[in-house]
C-alpha cells in the first residue's frame, strides 16, 4: 500500500530509446510530461536540470515521426532553446518537459541524444 493512498491514474505507454539503443517502455500518467516520465522512472539520457521549467534545454528528445502530428504545438521559447542544445537539432527535436502525455500519445516513442550537457 502506498503511504499516500492509491489513486487510479490513467497512463500512456512511452518508449525511450537511448543513444546506445537501450529501449525502455514505461507507463506515464496522463498530464505528466515526457521529461517527468523519464526522470521518475530513472531513465538516463534526460537530465532536466531545471525540473521542467523550460529553462535549461537538457531534456532534448527526438520524437518518432509517426507521433509528430499528435504533439502540442511548440512555443517560441522552446523553439529558441532547441537551437542551443548540446546535440544537433533535427526537425523532430523537442524538449521533453514541453510535451504533456495525452491518451492520443499512447505508444509514443522518443529517442534521447548522445549528450544533454
Amino acid at each position, binding site marked *: 500500500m*502506498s*503511504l*499516500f493512498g492509491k489513486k487510479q491514474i490513467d497512463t500512456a505507454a512511452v518508449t525511450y530509446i537511448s543513444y546506445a539503443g537501450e529501449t525502455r517502455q514505461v507507463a506515464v500518467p496522463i498530464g505528466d510530461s515526457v521529461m517527468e516520465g523519464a*526522470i*521518475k522512472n*530513472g531513465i538516463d539520457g534526460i537530465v532536466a*536540470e*531545471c*525540473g521542467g*521549467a*523550460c*529553462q*535549461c*534545454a537538457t531534456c532534448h528528445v527526438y520524437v518518432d515521426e509517426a507521433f509528430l502530428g499528435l504533439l502540442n504545438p511548440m512555443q*517560441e*521559447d522552446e523553439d*529558441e*532553446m532547441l*537551437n*542551443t542544445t548540446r546535440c544537433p537539432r533535427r526537425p523532430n527535436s523537442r524538449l521533453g518537459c514541453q510535451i504533456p502525455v495525452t491518451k492520443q500519445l499512447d505508444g509514443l516513442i522518443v529517442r534521447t541524444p548522445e549528450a544533454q550537457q
Partner: protein
Amino acid sequence: MKQDGVVIVGAGQAGFQVAASLRMEGFEEPIALIGDEPSLPYQRPPLSKGFMLGKQDIEGTALRPLAFYENHRIELVTGTKVTGIDRMSRAVSVASGRNLRYDTLVLAVGARNRMLPVKGAELDGVCYLRTDAEAVEIRQRLEQARDVVVIGGGFIGLEMAAAACALGKSVRVLEVQSRLMPRVVSQILSDFYRDVHTGQGVGISLGVSLSEIRGDQGKVSEVVLSDGSRWPADLVLVGIGVVPNIELAREAGLGVANGIVVDEQLRTEDESIYAIGDCADHPNPFAGGRVRIESVQNAVDQAKCIAAAIVGRAENYRAVPWFWTDQFDIKLQMAGLSSGHDRVVARGEPESRKFSAFYFREGRLAAVDSVNRPGDHLAARKLIGAGTEITPEQAGDPSVDLKSLVG
C-alpha cells in the same frame, strides 16, 4: 573499514540530489536523507509560480515518487529535526533520540525566511513562502483575499505579486530600495519589471519603509508606511530574503560566516563534513570571492560535485551560476554573477520585451540577464563557463551570433 555511509541533513533540492547522484555514481553504502518537513522531497520554484497560479498541483512538485527511495535504498527520514552532531563519534542525533552514524556527513540545511521586524507582523494574514505547506496556505487565502500587499520586491515577492494579480486581486508591492530586485539585476531590468507589473495593474511603491501592520480582531487590515500612508490589506505576503541555517554547524564547532564555511571542494574544516546549497559560504570563481547562492542550479551542481568526491573524484566546484524567474508572460534567465560589474550593455530593446543585459567586470563578461531570449541565456552560460573573450561591442550587436563565439 567504511560502512556507515553517508548521512544527509536536509531533504531539499541539494540533499535530494546528493542521494540521487551517489546512487547514479554506483555508491553502494547506506544513505540516509533526513528532512524536517513531512512531505517527500519537492521542488520549491513552482510554489510561487505554477502552483500559485493553479497550473500545477502540490503533489506534482515532488522530485521523485516514494518508490524511488525504496528502489535506490535511500533511507528517507521525513518530519525529523536533527538536533546535534557528534564529530568525535561521527553521528548525528535526531529529535526522536535516535543516532545515525556516518562516514561522510552532508549539511544541506538550507535557509529560512527572514522575519519582518515590525509591529503587527504576528497578525493572522501575514504570510511567508518557503515550504509547500506555506504555499498551500497562501493559495487558500488568496481565494478569499481582495487587497494583497506584498512586502519585498525581489524574486519571491514579485512572483507572488504576479500570481495574485493574475488571480484578479488588487496588489501593491512595497520595496525599501529605490528599484525592484536590487540585489540581483541592474537598473535596466528593474525599470523593465516595474513597467511590466504596473502595466498589469500591480501597484509598485519604491524606496518606502514599513512602520507597522495593523489588524482588526487579530486579522490583518492595513499596512502603514513610515510616511504615514496606508494600504488596505486582507493578505500580506512577505518576501524579504532568507537567513542561512548555520546553528547546527556552529554548535558542532564548525566555522560559520555568511553561511557554513567550506573550501573549494565544499568541505568544512572537518574533512568528513560537507556543506552545500543555500547554506554554504563557498569560494566561487564566478564571484571572484566567497559567496552564498540561493538557487536550484547551485544546489544541484554542488550536490553532484560532492557526490563525485565521495566516490573518489574530488574536484573544485566551478559550475556557472544561473537563475530564473517567471512573472506574468516574461521569462527572465540570468547567467553568471553580476556583482561588481562596471559596464552594462543591452542587446535588443526593452520595448520589444526581448532583450539581454550583458555585464562586464574589468573588461570580462561576468553575467548576462535575458528577457524572453533563452538562446542568449544558454549561449551566455557557455561563454561565461569557458571564459570566452567577448567585447561589449559584440555583445550589443544582435547580428553577432553568440553561439558562434562559443569555443
